[in-house]
């Protein structure tokens, strides 16, 4: 606990983390320190392990090797209210109306026995939830069930659900993928407002590089530095670029020594944006 090697005071420390499924190594040798209040955007090729990394941070899965420290303590191996999440495939509660889906997050922490608030505090919670739903543009669909929503609406519902909790750490897996540019801009504004207000730490996976660079204070590029064509699962992805965007100037920093010929995919990707 007292051993805070390599970045004393860092909020989140990822120490030599590996993750594999069966034979397939997905992530290997991840090392990083993240300060409280950073806005990290995660980019990388499809299937390289970004969602897996978020699952590790969430405590949904455990690393195969290595450990993750939060505030110097090993990460609680279960999800809790300090870490909010929006999954890649927006998962909302099918049995609750839109309003209840959001109000639930206000009710649960305050009602450890009943699981629901009553009377005045219930009205307050619903009021607050309605406001949040207004912000994501779902105020006209409060009484619908998720199955009656369009894809983008479900995604916004999941965002509202996570944001209303004001967690310390927010994990977003392609949260704006199914949104049109107009609404996406509103969401950006909403997220940044909340981030500035509460200084929460954000991890956001995105495929939109301009989004990644405009929102984030730090961009983490995931890539497989080594590929064995005969055993595609033998090597995992690592963070090949770790770019700090603090204070408006962008400083690409290779997180690992990186053979020049492997920088290709990221370059392509960046140009393609």
């Amino acid at each position: 606990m007292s051993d805070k090697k390599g970045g004393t005071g860092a909020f989140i420390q990822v120490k030599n983390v590996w993750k594999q499924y069966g034979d397939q190594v997905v992530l290997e040798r991840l090392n990083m320190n993240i300060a409280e209040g950073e806005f990290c955007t995660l980019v990388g090729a499809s299937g390289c392990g970004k969602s897996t990394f978020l699952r590790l941070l969430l405590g949904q899965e455990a690393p195969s090797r290595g450990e993750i420290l939060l505030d110097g303590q090993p990460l609680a191996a279960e999800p809790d209210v300090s870490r909010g999440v929006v999954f890649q495939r927006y998962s909302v509660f099918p049995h609750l109306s839109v309003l209840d889906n959001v109000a639930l997050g206000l009710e649960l922490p305050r009602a450890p026995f009943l699981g629901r608030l009553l009377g005045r505090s219930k009205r307050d919670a619903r009021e607050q939830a309605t406001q949040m739903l207004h912000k994501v543009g779902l105020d006209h669909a409060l009484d619908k069930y998720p199955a009656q929503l369009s894809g983008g609406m479900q995604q916004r519902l999941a965002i509202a659900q996570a944001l209303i909790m004001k967690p310390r750490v927010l994990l977003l897996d392609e949260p704006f993928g199914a949104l049109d540019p107009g609404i996406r801009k509103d969401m950006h504004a909403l997220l940044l407002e909340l981030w500035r207000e509460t200084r929460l730490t954000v991890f956001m996976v995105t495929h939109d590089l301009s989004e990644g660079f405009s929102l984030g204070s730090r961009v983490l590029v995931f890539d497989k530095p080594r590929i064995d064509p005969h055993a595609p699962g033998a090597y995992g992805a690592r963070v090949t670029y770790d770019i700090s965007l603090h204070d408006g100037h962008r400083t690409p920093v290779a997180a690992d020594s990186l053979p020049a010929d492997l920088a290709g995919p990221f370059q392509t990707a960046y140009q393609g944006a």
Partner: protein
Amino acid sequence: MRLINRSPSRGGRLALAILPFALLLALYLAHSAQRLELNPNDKLLPSFGQMSAAVERLAFTPDERSGDYLFWLDTASSLKRLGTGLAIAAVAGLCLGVAAGTLPLFGAPLSPLITVLSMVPPLAILPILFIVFGLGELSKVMLIVIGITPILARDLEQRAREIPPELLIKAQTLGANTWTLILRLVLPQLMPRLLISLRLVMGSAWLFLIAAEAIASTDGLGYRIFLVRRYMAMDVILPYVAWITLLAWAMDYLLWRLTRLLFPWHEGAKA
């Protein structure tokens, strides 16, 4: 149009639904008439006239000895037993299923126990059940409970495990503890399934009721069936069986309506 995309019209649906029953009825009538022609006293397949006379006597004529209307007395007793049994089994099955399917620490001892208990044929260990529950109403209700609770519990356990893990995780990030997670996520999602499971075990429940009433009782639909079986009064048995089927079907239908009403979000409710 492909068969899979073709739906009957409203009227067509009704006609199709009635069709197999009409066929069964015709089959019965033909065989009954044939047998009765050979032997007018034949008891196996009574005519509708004989059956309605039996119903008239049991349902609308007071019993000579007690003055009761036996048919309604039997129905009331049986429904009371069945209702109590189903209610207890539903609650017990839900609790066990949720505990075993949601909490690994509870599932480890409960899951094998429920599995094994569901395999014990209750009718074979009746003597022990008698000692534990006596021979009164309790034992009849308990036979239903013992008979169907393990099935309900196993089905709900299975369904609880099918809840996507993402939802459980999400609920925890929203501040749920184990108890509120069960209360607000697992239970509501399992409730419609409970009603569907109850519909599936309805037939078994009636079977256990009839078996229980055959053991020691003085009224009930199962009692009457077993009693008159002694002289093969199929003219009583068949209307009773039809009545049981109708009651069970009505309960099934009510549960279905209830599922649709209470859980509009549940797509399975369309079945």
